């Protein structure tokens, strides 16, 4: 009962509580389907290119054009968008109905649900997708005529799936996109299919994601059972009814958020299921940037934000989300500190930042989470693309110990400095976009009441320091310092640079540089929305992103948005879980947390930066000395070792899940062959055979045997007849 009030605000104050689809039927918006269609067209064209063995950059042009078209469409959609949201029906998909009752039909169609949240996501997805495709057109050059078309077809598939994930109006189509991006990820991670590591990583990504997908599937079942629909608008309607809770049993509403969480954790690489993401770096770098940093991995955040009301029904679930997010952030940061592969460091930092986002969701700031998604998309894509440029230029070299002083090399300046901008954002240097978005989350952690949220907050702050350290560890090592480099594995001294005896890195050219610059600008500009004024509701703070979250299901987590305002809150809400309106007793160092966090996180970031500079710029030998010293001490030695080995999580999974199942598979197979088939089936089959063997001598073809059988049989019959005639037939009729 007490939670009913939470759902009224989903419709703007004053509007009657009716499903969106009744209010808006938007056939005039059906051109929004272009966002889905264009990547598909691009997929088909790329497929044709592959079939006809096109050796030019045509696939890249097609894909870039298609994605740019999709981006333009999204932006147009944004400008023609009016709150609170619209449903654009494209075509029917699955409709099963067997009656007219409430739950006697199951319906999931290809329909787009356009509200601000999906617009926010689709815009940066298509925008970044376009940029990264353009980048890839140069990056993938060595594969021209080989896998070039395949690569861009994969990107098209990804964009299609991501768009349907984001824009779907029901959970089933979201599931389609969900698995679709998983498949695209499989496709693209396994792009270098001749490398066993890439194939294994692709497989791992798909399977781990599948585990999450089960959660999503079961959540969809439960949602349909509980609410009778899987469409967002109808779901909202049901949740607004006063008596729905009485109609259903209670355990389902508690289970739904946990299942959704499982799905989100799988896709967004959170603690139990994050292992696939670092391995996914086997894919081409643009893929890592697009899928495994900027867009796909934020699908989990999107899912939770999209189904936020369901999470609010079960407050414990959000606390779990917060803790898992916080711990993942810390864990991944510690692993990231000890890695040497710069792409892997970036991967762990992605995991870590995703942890922040979940922390934000868990502490009731969907705004913060969404904002962090937004900023992170830019700077992380930027960082990955610079890593990619380095990898590209140094023949696959990714070890930060083997490249140094990049900013002094001719042609690499843009790369180095754009990377610097990205690193600043990631490290949370004051007033950069990452700084602003992270602070929102950190502050809310202290503001929101929950079990151990204060500890969690301090852990998050420590993580921020670690982030600054490992980010600049990369930059100082790779871009600063004296010039030194070695070629990577892909360098075979071929005719390009082999004849001079030494290795010459080939610097990125115009396209890559342009994209890097655009992204760097974007990463810096991403700070701006924070300062923009609100349009939807002047009481909100948080600028444009808050606007974008406001019209959606995730509006509960916007600063300044108070359920009290619409008059439906009751006392239980804030004590159970949620904002403290006054922030009165959440002071840190005598300041309001939001203000305090500017100082604290800024300071912590600087400390991390300082350590990075000390160990990796000024006194690089100190870093090795520190490591040696730690390894020499028994009580400390485990730390770097465990960090370098990623806390043994892969080994743990291998020993605890994969191996037992594999052994079980062998046992089952043996059981199948020897017990079921061998003993039961063949055993039964052997009975007649055995009897026949036993009687076989009688029919061995020797004429006497036949005589024995014939005469014996006849005699027995005769004897029986005689006896019967003598003593009477059975039954006494004789």
């Amino acid at each position: 009962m007490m939670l009913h009030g939470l759902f009224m605000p989903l419709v703007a104050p004053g509007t009657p509580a009716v499903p969106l689809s009744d209010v808006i039927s938007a056939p005039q918006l059906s051109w929004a389907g272009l966002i889905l269609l264009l990547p598909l067209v691009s997929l088909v064209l790329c497929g044709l290119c592959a079939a006809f063995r096109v050796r030019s950059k045509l696939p890249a042009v097609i894909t870039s054009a298609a994605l740019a078209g999709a981006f333009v469409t999204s932006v147009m959609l944004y400008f023609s968008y009016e709150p609170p949201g619209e449903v654009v029906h494209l075509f029917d998909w699955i409709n099963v109905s067997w009656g007219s009752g409430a739950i006697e039909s199951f319906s999931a169609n290809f329909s787009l649900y356009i509200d601000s949240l999906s617009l926010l996501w689709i815009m940066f997805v298509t925008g970044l997708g376009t940029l990264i495709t353009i980048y890839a057109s140069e990056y993938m050059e060595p594969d021209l005529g080989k896998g070039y078309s395949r690569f861009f077809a994969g990107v098209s598939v990804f964009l299609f799936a991501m768009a349907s994930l984001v824009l779907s109006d029901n959970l089933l189509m979201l599931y389609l996109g969900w698995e679709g991006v998983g498949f695209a990820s499989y496709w693209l991670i396994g792009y270098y299919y001749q490398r066993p590591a890439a194939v294994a990583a692709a497989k791992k990504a798909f399977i781990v994601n599948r585990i999450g997908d089960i959660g999503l599937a079961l959540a969809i079942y439960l949602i349909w059972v509980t609410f009778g629909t899987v469409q967002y608008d109808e779901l909202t309607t049901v949740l607004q009814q006063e008596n729905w809770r009485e109609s259903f049993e209670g355990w389902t509403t508690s289970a739904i958020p946990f299942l959704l969480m499982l799905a989100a954790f799988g896709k967004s690489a959170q603690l139990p299921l994050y292992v696939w993401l670092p391995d996914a770096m086997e894919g081409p770098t643009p893929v890592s940037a697009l899928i495994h940093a900027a867009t796909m991995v934020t699908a989990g955040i999107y899912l939770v934000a999209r189904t936020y009301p369901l999470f609010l029904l079960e407050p414990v679930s959000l606390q779990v989300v917060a803790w898992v997010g916080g711990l993942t952030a810390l864990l991944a940061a510690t692993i990231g500190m000890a890695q040497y592969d710069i792409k892997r460091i970036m991967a762990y930092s992605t995991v870590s930042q995703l942890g922040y986002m979940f922390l934000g969701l868990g502490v009731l700031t969907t705004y913060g989470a969404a904002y962090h998604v937004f900023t992170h998309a830019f700077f992380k894509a930027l960082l990955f693309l610079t890593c990619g440029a380095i990898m590209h230029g140094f023949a696959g070299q990714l070890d930060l110990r083997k490249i140094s002083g990049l900013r002094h090399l001719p042609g690499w300046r843009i790369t180095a400095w754009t990377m610097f901008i990205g690193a600043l954002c990631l490290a949370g240097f004051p007033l950069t976009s990452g700084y602003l978005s992270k602070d929102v989350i950190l502050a809310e952690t202290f503001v929101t009441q929950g079990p151990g949220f204060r500890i969690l907050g301090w852990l998050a702050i420590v993580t921020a320091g670690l982030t600054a350290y490992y980010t600049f560890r990369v930059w100082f090592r790779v871009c600063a310092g004296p010039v030194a480099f070695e070629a990577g594995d892909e360098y075979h001294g071929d005719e390009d640079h082999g004849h001079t005896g030494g290795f010459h890195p080939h610097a990125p050219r115009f396209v890559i540089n342009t994209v890097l610059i655009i992204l760097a600008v974007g990463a810096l500009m991403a700070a701006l929305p924070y300062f923009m004024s609100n349009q939807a509701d002047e009481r909100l703070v948080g600028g444009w992103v808050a606007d974008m979250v406001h019209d959606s299901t995730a509006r509960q987590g916007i600063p300044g948005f108070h359920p009290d305002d619409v008059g439906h809150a009751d006392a239980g809400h804030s004590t159970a879980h949620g904002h403290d309106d006054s922030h009165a007793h959440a002071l840190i160092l005598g300041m309001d947390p939001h203000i305090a966090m500017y100082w604290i996180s800024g300071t912590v970031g600087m400390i991390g930066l300082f350590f990075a500079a000390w160990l990796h710029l000024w006194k690089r030998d100190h870093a090795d000395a520190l490591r040696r010293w730690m390894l020499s001490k028994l009580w400390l030695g485990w730390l770097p070792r465990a960090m370098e080995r990623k806390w043994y999580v892969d080994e743990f999974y291998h020993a605890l899940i994969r191996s037992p199942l594999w052994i079980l598979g062998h046992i089952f197979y043996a059981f199948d062959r020897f017990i079921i088939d061998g003993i039961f089936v063949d055993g039964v089959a052997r009975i007649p055979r055995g009897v026949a063997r036993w009687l076989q001598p009688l029919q061995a073809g020797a004429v006497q045997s036949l005589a024995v059988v014939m005469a014996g049989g006849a005699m027995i019959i005769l004897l029986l007849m005689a006896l019967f005639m003598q003593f009477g037939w059975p039954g006494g009729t004789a």
Partner: protein
Amino acid sequence: MDSILPYIATAVAAIGLLIVLSSGVRLTRAGGGVLGMAGLVWLFMLASTIPGGVGDVTIEVFFLIFAAMAVSAGVQMIRSPRPVYSALFFVLVVMSVCGMLVMLEAFFIAFALVIVYAGAILITYMFVLMLAQQASDASHQGETPEYDRTPRDPVAAVCVAAIFMAVVVNVTFTGLNDLAPAASDVDRLRADAALLANTPRGVQRQVGEDVVLPDSLDGHITVQGDGVVLHASSPTGDALIVPLKSPGNTSHVGWSLVARFPASLELAGIILLMAMFGAVILARRQIDHAEEELASAVAAPDSSEVDA
């Protein structure tokens, strides 16, 4: 028969037979023979409770002698590892059976059996046996081959035989009581009369030319007392009653054969003919000529390889 004793006797005899067949030790074999004989004797003693005995003690004694001979010779025949001995024992069996047939007043058959079996068929067997053994065992002459020494599955054999014997015992002990009564002396005389009535020329020969037979003998030959008489007339027309002799076994058999089973008789002849043909064709030495051999044989008749 309410008693189970005949079956037990049969079983005892069967066990005796089994011992005889399967044992390699002479003494054990003898014991088995005695056991089997004892079983049979017991069985025969039990059977004597069945009514319907005929004949006198002499016949009984001879019957028993012949029976014992037949049975023991039969057992020896199937036991003996030497086929030639088997054949000889079979001759003994045939002789015993013929003796039995004499006891049963089937004289013609008895002699025919001796002649045909012991005289003709058995000789053929002996020929084949000797032929085969001479051909096959050239290397180890005089040694009985393995397949003659070891019987195959005597248990099954004796079991089947015992079951068969049990059936016979059952039928004998239960069924004979329901049998139509045996032919009496009058019946036999009537049979003689019927035969005589059908053979007017034989009767004529018996009674001589001075008795005029009626056109049809039907109703003129009747049984009177313990003989058959002919009601005829003298040439003078006086009614005569002439006693007639019994026509005898051979006549009876012959008449039955010719008058009652003429078609079967013909068939038997055909069977014999066919058997002769068959035997000739089968036993002829087979020469398989390949096509080209034939062709070359036709082309070059002096080729020596034709008989290869």
